[in-house]
């Protein structure tokens, strides 16, 4: 193969969000006419890097050289006009408009008088769809399409823009195998036309099947970039996850008792299928998996925020049905949600109000909320969790992220639950608070609570969990014991890779 011309170079890109170092001097080079895989764990910085490229984020430092010139794109439009087009993970579509209108959104063909030329738009769309052998009527509305077809429309839109660089952020996550095949054919033919494609994916068979080069990121750092022939699957997985497991995760041994919560065959069509596991007293059960594996959805179903299509939940030997979170809380199951600003704490209320919210009845005496009881409980938890607030009446919005998370946890502890579900309990909080929360989780297990923890952080999963349930695209692909689990093993299950030669497409 002759050496190819570099079309894009990103040099030493540095990006910080509110103290989080998302990209630390990352470099990335893309050649003309290649498919370049960009891989890494959740939060490795893949999407962030690409969003810097298309002008959605402005980096703190670094340089982008495109076709020989240093560029600084300020908007998606500018980037697109320059020939770079990104297909976002979250679909950016106008659901009340037709397929054709979405494909041409922002660059509609016009008639002489400047009106939208629907005839041309529809015939052009039909032609592009046929060229890519995609069976979608350009006149149908986006809202009536399946998620997979919506994804295909996204891809069609990018392709139809005649971009030189197309960035695909996990384009196949919602597609069926046949649709994936079509997409791969499209990718290959685009490549043969001399276009460059950045392909963000977790699926090894796609990476090894269609990509020419691979760049690996981990924790916002550049790890390695090489031709795909120079790397094999186990090596790739190792590079993605390899890291020092620090001593930050002190799970103390706890007495593990009888099964408290058991779920059997939980299914919500389109989200997850046949999810079964059990949770014991004194145990921390980790749920690992990649973004979109359905972890949050499963616990939301347990809590009653989502209605199950099938399956049962058994609490202490009795089948239960939670219709709304209130039912679950009454039965002693409580969730600290992933997005603490949206579901975890009420930012405009005080620390006290937040802590007491789930069990305000405890402060009632003679039909009246007693100030002294409020104070007793608030002080107890502020002390226990070392919440750094000037007083119980400080507004939560003014606390640091870590302290907000502690307030969220204090709230659920105050409700005296038997089963505690923590969804990403330490995402985006500082190291000190993180270890406080880990210590607390250990203590809770030690007191005989059953803890279910979702985490995307490999070290946290490995450090804290007694057992680990791994989800891949809505299926349980493995349940590992603490002593048998390591990051390679978990990653293999999480990406649905089940051994040499034998691949699980999921």
């Amino acid at each position, binding site marked *: 193969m002759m050496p190819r011309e570099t079309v894009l170079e990103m040099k030493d890109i540095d990006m910080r969000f509110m103290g989080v170092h998302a990209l630390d001097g990352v470099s990335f080079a893309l050649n003309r006419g290649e498919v370049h895989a960009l891989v890494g764990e959740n939060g490795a910085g893949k999407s962030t890097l690409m969003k810097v490229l298309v002008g959605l984020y402005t980096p703190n430092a670094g340089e982008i050289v495109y076709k020989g010139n240093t560029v600084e794109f300020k*908007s998606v439009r500018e980037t697109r006009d320059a020939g770079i087009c990104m297909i976002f993970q979250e*679909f950016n579509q*106008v*659901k*009340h408009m037709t397929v054709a209108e979405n494909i041409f*959104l*922002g660059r509609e063909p016009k008639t002489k008088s400047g009106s*939208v030329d629907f005839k041309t738009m529809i015939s052009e769309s039909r032609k592009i769809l046929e060229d890519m052998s995609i069976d979608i009527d350009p006149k149908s509305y986006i809202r009536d399409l399946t998620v997979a077809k919506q994804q295909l429309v996204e891809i069609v839109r990018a392709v139809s823009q005649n971009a030189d660089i197309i960035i695909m952020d996990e384009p196949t996550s919602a597609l069926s195998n046949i649709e994936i095949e079509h997409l791969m054919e499209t990718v290959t033919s685009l490549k043969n036309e001399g276009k460059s494609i950045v392909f963000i994916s977790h699926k090894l068979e796609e990476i090894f099947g269609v990509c020419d080069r691979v760049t690996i990121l981990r924790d916002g750092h550049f790890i390695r970039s090489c031709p795909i022939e120079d790397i094999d699957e186990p090596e790739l997985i190792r590079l993605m996850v390899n890291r020092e497991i620090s001593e930050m995760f002190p799970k103390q041994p706890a007495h593990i008792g009888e099964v408290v919560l058991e779920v059997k065959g939980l299914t919500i069509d389109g989200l997850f299928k046949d999810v079964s596991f059990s949770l014991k007293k004194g145990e921390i059960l980790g749920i690992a998996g990649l973004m979109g594996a359905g972890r949050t959805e499963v616990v939301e179903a347990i809590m009653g925020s989502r209605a199950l299509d099938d399956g049962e939940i058994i609490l202490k030997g009795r089948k239960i049905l939670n219709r709304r979170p209130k039912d679950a809380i009454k039965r002693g199951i409580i969730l600290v949600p992933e997005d603490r600003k949206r579901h975890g704490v009420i930012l405009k209320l005080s620390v006290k109000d937040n802590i007491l919210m789930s069990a305000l009845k405890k402060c009632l005496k003679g039909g009246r909320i007693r100030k002294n009881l409020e104070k007793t409980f608030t002080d107890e938890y502020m002390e226990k969790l070392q919440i750094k607030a000037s007083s119980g009446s400080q507004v939560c919005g003014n606390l640091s992220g870590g302290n907000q998370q502690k307030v969220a946890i204090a709230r659920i502890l105050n409700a005296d639950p038997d089963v505690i579900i923590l969804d990403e309990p330490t995402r985006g909080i500082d190291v000190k608070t993180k270890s406080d929360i880990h210590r607390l989780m250990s203590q809770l297990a030690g007191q005989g609570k059953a803890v279910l923890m979702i985490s995307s952080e490999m070290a946290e999963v490995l450090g804290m969990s007694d057992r680990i349930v791994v989800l891949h695209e809505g299926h349980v692909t493995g349940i590992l014991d603490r002593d048998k689990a390591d990051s390679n093993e978990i990653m293999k299950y999480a990406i649905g890779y089940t051994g040499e030669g034998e691949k699980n497409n999921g």
Partner: protein
Amino acid sequence: MDESIKSRRLSLSLRTLKRYSSEYGIFIGFVLIVIFLSFATPTFATYWNLITILRQVASIGIATVAVGMLIIMGCIDLSIGSMFALCGITAGLIISTGKEGFGLPVPLGYAVGIATGVLFGFLNGIIIAKGKIPAFIVTMASMWIARGLALILAHGMPVGSFPDAFTYLGTASIDKANILPWSVIVYLLVVIVMDFVMKKRPLGRYIYAVGSNEDAALAAGINTQAIKVKAYLLEGGLLGLAATLLASRLKSAAPALGQGYELDAIAGAIVGGVSFSGGIGTVWSMVLGAIIIGVINNGMDLLGVEAFYKQIVKGLIILFAVLLDRQRAGRAE
């Protein structure tokens, strides 16, 4: 025939029925109201009464189309009523031959009325788009400001003494027999133009896109701020036209003109099926909505319903329309 197929067919046709009833529910409701009023009152189903309704609907109908466009974009305008007063009074002062008026040529009066609307719409739009402030708040503020300006300009008194050339548009008809009033023709023209804009012009399509998914519109390279400003500017112009038309029909412009019109206009759009969550609605359905509100007002007058009860009926109709919208939105999810 296989039982399961039969039952599936049945459930399919039931679903179709349900779909149609929510799609055309408002139209069916409208037809039922018309049938009821035709039998219940001797005068409702006469040509003259229908033309009276249309004449009354013309001004508020233009405002309905204007605000409906904003609701499709995910915005709102609460200053409509005050804008009626302000635009009516600026136009009135220009052409009035009374001592407070300037007595200038009639076309200039129309131009100034519309220009006032355009200016206020532009200001509303620029503050909403650039300041990223909710339209509800901004237009609530301009509601007070416009009303205040109207009171100051008119010294708190109605402006009158309009030349016949000015009142011609609101009162006269295209033919001698008074069959087709000019105001209805103006309304019809606005509707046809706006239908074209919303369906065929990039501005209209972008208004739908912004209302349906603003992030997507932005990511597609649409200047969403500019779209918002343009939409408010257009809305303001339409309000200016509606206000001058109303002043022309009433032969005066009082500072209290148009009080509560924002609610009638918004109600018309909602009853016509414009979704409050944005992205859905057509101009012709807004016409239907405005006419339904007009017919109900008229019908209750003919039936001699007390004013107090009218309000309850209007409220119930809005609730009914929103429930239908909910059902539609649920299906679109």
